[in-house]
């Protein structure tokens, strides 16, 4: 799986994002994290191979999430579906 790491000064939370490369909400979420200087990792699911797409589906559903992008996983426990600035800020204490 091609995981991209975006460096940032804020590293107090572990953030992983499932995204779609063509999705405007995903782009906005990436930009929001960058603007706030937050370090995060993401994977563009549409660019993954078949095997990895299936892994992503299993991983999101295993965590009780809905299959919708962007999906953010904060500290391996909090799951945020969609671009929701308030919820992201709250989870990351921004």
């Amino acid at each position, binding site marked *: 799986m091609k995981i991209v790491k975006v460096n940032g000064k804020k590293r107090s939370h572990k953030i992983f994002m499932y995204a*779609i*490369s*063509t*999705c*405007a*909400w*995903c*782009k*906005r979420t990436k930009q929001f994290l960058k603007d706030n200087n937050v370090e995060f990792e993401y994977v563009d*699911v*549409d660019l993954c191979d*078949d*095997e990895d*797409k*299936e892994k*992503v*589906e299993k991983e999101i*559903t295993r965590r009780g999430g*809905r*299959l*919708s*992008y*962007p999906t953010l996983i904060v500290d391996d426990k909090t799951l945020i*579906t*969609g*671009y*929701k*600035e308030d919820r992201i800020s709250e989870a990351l204490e921004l």
Partner: protein
Amino acid sequence: MTTLEAVRRRAESDARTYGYVLNPDSKFLVDLIEGLKTNEDRYGYPSCPCRLASGVFELDRDIICPCDYRDPDVQEYGYCFCGLFIRKDIIEENKPIESIPERRPQEKIALAHVPASQRVEKPAEVVPALTAIPLKTKLKMWYCKQCGYVVFREEPPFICPICKAKKEMFEEIRATIYLGA
């Protein structure tokens, strides 16, 4: 290969037909138009840029822009899932636009994550799941009492694409239709 201009013109024309407007945030709109173009070049049809397409036309049919979920989403939230089409009153009232919940059934989304190789190699497992979707839905025929437009789908359209009459103006046509031979 299509062009960004062609994709934009098509979206504008479609928004006009249904009485919507395109997202006024120019950067966001460019992202969406580029996403649609990428998908059209990639799959041969402009599937929703904010959803995972399978690349199989029959499976992606409901998310080809304008998707089947657009009108109910615009009705309920004021704009569609990806934020391309927006109701005029939302713009006029300057309401903030955020992600809305996904209306597309999860089992359909899950199918886009199933490896294509599995679909081919294990038809016995996959085919029933694929064919189960259209069989479950009961397609009906509706006509617009205002202009006579006829449509074959589960629910009547929220707005008549021809004369803009509301959903209530649609009435079901009760007839026996024999599909196939």
